[in-house]
């Protein structure tokens, strides 16, 4: 870990306050898989503002479209839980099917798609009525969930089948299956909906597909001096709003790779905490927060300077992360 010097931050905050234009402060929510809790961090002060208990083994975490709810996969409770994003009070549960791990919301804000790792299914649930709309059979050990910005296509990755399954959200039928490298973990569309990025944990790569015909645009390999190839395990992926940069969490390599999107070249590797799995950008793209499962902390990266600026203690085994819109 680099030695981080957060000393400038209070000065920056004070200066902004004095000028009457406070910095945008977002709430960062981190699920702690082992502690059954969520750590809340202020994105401006970079301090923990609250920690609250949730169901067992919380992993995937997202926001509702209106930003009022945080929606958490509590895997060992075989359910999805909903909490108020402001008060952190429990709101309700949603049926999820067994062992929910990752989920994604349709852009209409109503339909939640949940990967059921143990059942080889994706469950679709209406988050208002709690009605299970359908269960879609997919490959073995489904995990990664991506949805096109227009909501027409859902992508699910299956860890053991090593495939990305493309599902039509109108019919809930799979219309294409693309083989990718071993143990695909995360699938994500770019903002324009033209590309799908898929990370392969054991393959050690990120595959970029053309969304229209599912043909491969490119494949990103990672090499870090002094780090064994097998320790480089890509999982979390995030792209900046302007589509110029992508960040990939590399697991026990303890690095976040910075990718130049137009060329698909790795620009830099940033040393973060141990076993980095997931990451999330603030809505203004100024900061990136990473969950580090083995060092039980969150690393904050300054996106403009591509530097780790602070590590923040979270609960045990931080896993998922999401950031509020305001």
């Amino acid at each position, binding site marked *: 870990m680099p030695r981080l010097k957060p000393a400038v931050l209070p000065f920056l905050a004070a200066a902004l306050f004095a000028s009457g234009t406070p910095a945008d402060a977002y709430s960062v929510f981190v699920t702690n898989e082992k502690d059954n809790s969520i750590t809340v961090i202020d994105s401006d002060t970079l301090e923990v503002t609250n920690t609250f208990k949730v169901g067992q083994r919380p992993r995937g975490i997202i926001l509702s479209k209106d930003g009022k709810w945080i929606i958490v996969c509590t895997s060992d409770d075989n359910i999805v839980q909903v909490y108020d994003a402001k008060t952190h009070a429990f709101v309700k549960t949603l049926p999820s099917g067994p062992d929910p791990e990752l989920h994604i919301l349709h852009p209409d804000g109503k339909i939640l798609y949940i990967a059921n790792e143990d059942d080889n299914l994706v469950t679709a649930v209406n988050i208002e009525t709690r009605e299970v709309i359908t269960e879609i059979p997919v490959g073995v050990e489904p995990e990664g969930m991506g949805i096109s910005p227009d909501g027409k296509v859902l992508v699910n990755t299956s860890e053991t089948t090593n495939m990305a399954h493309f599902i039509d959200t109108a019919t809930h039928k799979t219309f294409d299956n693309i083989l990718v490298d071993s143990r695909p973990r995360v699938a994500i569309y770019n903002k324009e909906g033209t590309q799908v990025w898929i990370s392969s944990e054991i393959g050690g790569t990120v595959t970029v597909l053309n969304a229209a015909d599912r043909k491969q645009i490119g494949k990103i390999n990672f090499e870090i001096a002094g780090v*064994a190839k097998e*320790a480089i395990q890509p999982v979390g992926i995030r792209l900046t709003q302007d589509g110029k940069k992508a960040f990939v969490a590399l697991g026990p390599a303890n690095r976040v790779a910075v990718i130049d999107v137009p060329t698909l070249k790795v620009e830099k590797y940033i040393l973060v905490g141990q076993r980095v799995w997931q990451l999330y950008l603030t809505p203004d793209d100024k900061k990136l927060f990473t969950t580090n499962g083995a060092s039980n902390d969150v690393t904050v990266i300054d996106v403009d300077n591509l530097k780790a600026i602070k590590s923040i203690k979270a609960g045990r085994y931080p896993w998922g992360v999401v950031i509020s819109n305001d």
Partner: protein
Amino acid sequence: MKYAVGSIRRFSASTLAMAAALAAMTAAGSAFSAEGASEPAAEPSTVAKDTNEWPCVSRKVLSLDAATIWDGPDISAETEKKWRSDEKVRKLSQYLISRRVPLEEAEAAVKSFAKEQADDQRDARLTELFAAVLSRTNDERKLVLSGIERFHKRQVARAKEIEREGLALPGQGEALPTDAMPAGEIDKISNEQELYNWNVRVFQERQKNIPIACEIPQLMDERAGAIARSIRGEMKS
């Protein structure tokens, strides 16, 4: 992804189970002894060759590389040589990696070691200490990894034997729940069926140890990372 996790700070039931699992798995191999143990030179890590013998969900990573937890000075061959002949560093590094020692106490020991050093020597000595912690972690890690693989191999052999025994039974390998049987009925079980039931039970009990043991290399890495941060925090360069 099913990543099992655990705490290193508390002596919980799971920690004790881990210790038992580790003991069982390393028993057949050479015991690792701190004092007076021969300390092989550090080897560069290589890609795991036979993943079929690796039963853990997490990918097998053969060694913990300095570059994953250390942004301090490079560990040179000279540094490696130095710590091995430095008794203080040898003893302290063994103490630091022991998961029986609470992390707070280990961090205090690092601080105290740093304080004892002359200003112009501090960073070099702390780098030696890190090299020693990493090297010892990797020595112990190697034993644990091979122990997990040996254990898994024995389980595979046991499974094949159980399958063979099962096919020879009238019910073709259906384990009878003897604990739920009415009194008097148990006597009717054949010796072969009893042996089969016993072997299935032993297999299942042992299988439960595998996920627990799979956590051990991760906990070692976690510990080494925490110690590395503590050492690095005492350095000026």
